[in-house]
């Protein structure tokens, strides 16, 4: 995504915007500042991002959404805290909080990051003359942040790999699967529509795969789980396999991300030691009522024991508490894939499975929950 010129970021469409609902609201009602022809005076106490915080400028009219949104992962980034706290100890939390503020917090999203302009994490700037949009534009909003893995996979930007069939054939946008309930957060009455033995009470999620699985493939493809599509593999494997095990292709894994502040500029930066394409099936580390699969695809995530050593020594003493070959949901779904060509394209094919020999010895202990110790046996040919 090409960066916008400074003037482009703040240019208002004077023909159209005043005719819209939001055009009936005085600029200063949301943005503060004062009426003055002098820029410096006009920008006194300016609120550049009025949808930050809770309550915010959106709350007056959209209070039902903004209240729930304050608990969403888009707003809280709670998933980062969940894994950082699991791998560290309380005495390390202040140093990690500083690291988080410097390097991670800019991924926090506010209402305006999706509904009026590009996310702050990619430089910001109005989408289209301050016109508000109900549906965020996919490449200027969603994949602006979720680009290096999800975006590249979905749009087919990884060399030699096709884009997701839902995009190639269906031209589906992110929100065609990811509902506003998911993006804005789970309303407290979610279980009224989605009852489940483990979800009588729906709490804000701890991480992206916490709680209810949403979206699910079965929501649009119910026959796959009902045995009505005459596909033997669906009948035989049922809920034992995550759909992506058969229907995704290679996806990105990363190694060794380290963060620091620049000596020259004082600005935060990161270094990732390696990014490569993998397709590996592991055991499901998040097995639950909502994710009952025995096997899932796993992606190497770039956290390392020394990732944050710029901020202190041994900040992740409990690194091995969590696996860093992680449950993954690649966004490059295909109807036909090499591993699903036949039973023995997968059965007996050790190359497809995350076995101990494929794991960095220093990470073996952390990944014991996902390492496959016994490759599913070859199916005898008739």
């Amino acid at each position, binding site marked *: 995504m090409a960066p916008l010129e400074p003037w482009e970021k703040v*240019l208002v469409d004077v023909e159209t915007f005043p005719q819209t609902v939001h055009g009936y609201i005085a600029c200063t009602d949301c943005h503060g500042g004062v009426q003055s022809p002098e820029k410096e005076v006009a920008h006194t106490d300016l609120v550049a991002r009025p949808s930050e915080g809770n309550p915010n400028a959106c709350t007056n009219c959209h209070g039902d959404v903004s209240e729930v949104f304050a608990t969403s992962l888009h707003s809280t980034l709670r998933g980062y805290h969940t894994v950082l706290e699991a791998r560290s100890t309380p005495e390390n939390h202040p140093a990690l909080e500083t690291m988080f503020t410097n390097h991670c917090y800019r991924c926090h999203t506010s209402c305006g990051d999706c509904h009026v302009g590009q996310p702050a994490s990619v430089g910001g700037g109005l989408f289209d003359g*301050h016109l508000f949009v109900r549906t965020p534009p996919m490449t200027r909003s969603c994949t602006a942040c979720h680009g290096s893995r999800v975006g590249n996979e979905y749009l087919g930007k990884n060399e030699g790999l096709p884009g997701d069939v839902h995009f190639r054939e269906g031209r589906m946008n992110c929100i065609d699967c990811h509902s506003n309930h998911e993006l804005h957060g789970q309303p407290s009455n979610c279980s009224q529509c989605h009852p489940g033995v483990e979800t009588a009470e729906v709490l804000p999620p701890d991480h992206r795969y916490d709680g209810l699985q949403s979206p699910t493939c079965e929501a649009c493809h119910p026959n796959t789980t009902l045995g009505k599509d005459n596909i033997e593999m669906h009948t035989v494997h049922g809920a034992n396999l995550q759909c992506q095990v058969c229907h995704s292709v290679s996806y990105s894994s990363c190694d060794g991300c380290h963060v620091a502040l620049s000596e020259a500029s004082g600005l935060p930066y990161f270094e990732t030691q390696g990014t490569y394409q993998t397709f590996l099936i592991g055991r499901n580390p998040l097995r639950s009522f909502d994710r009952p699969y025995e096997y899932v695809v796993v992606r190497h995530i770039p956290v390392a024991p020394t990732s944050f050593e710029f901020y202190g020594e041994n900040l992740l003493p409990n690194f091995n508490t969590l696996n860093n070959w992680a449950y993954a949901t690649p966004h490059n779904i295909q109807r036909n894939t090499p591993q699903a060509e036949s039973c023995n394209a997968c059965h007996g094919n050790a190359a497809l499975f995350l076995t101990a020999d494929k794991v960095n010895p220093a990470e073996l202990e952390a990944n014991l929950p996902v390492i496959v110790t016994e490759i599913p046996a070859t199916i005898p040919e008739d």
Partner: protein
Amino acid sequence: MRKLRWLSLIILALWLVLSGCQGEAVINPADEAYASVDTLPQGESNPIALAPTPTAPALAEPNECLNCHADQQRLVDTARPEEAVESESSGVG
């Protein structure tokens, strides 16, 4: 008894004749609004009560914010110079 019946008929006839000469009833718009609320089907909201007060768009008034933010050249001229700092990040984020 017969006198009383005649008297009643005369009063009724007079009332009918005089009511035809009555002036047009003046209906208070507010009363009409309330009347329409009363006749709304149960569960429907009152459209009169919910209708926003028509006002001109706020931005149609003289607006220094818009004078500048709708003027590309002025935004270019007044933009704070940005010092290009090359990111030291490397690899996929």
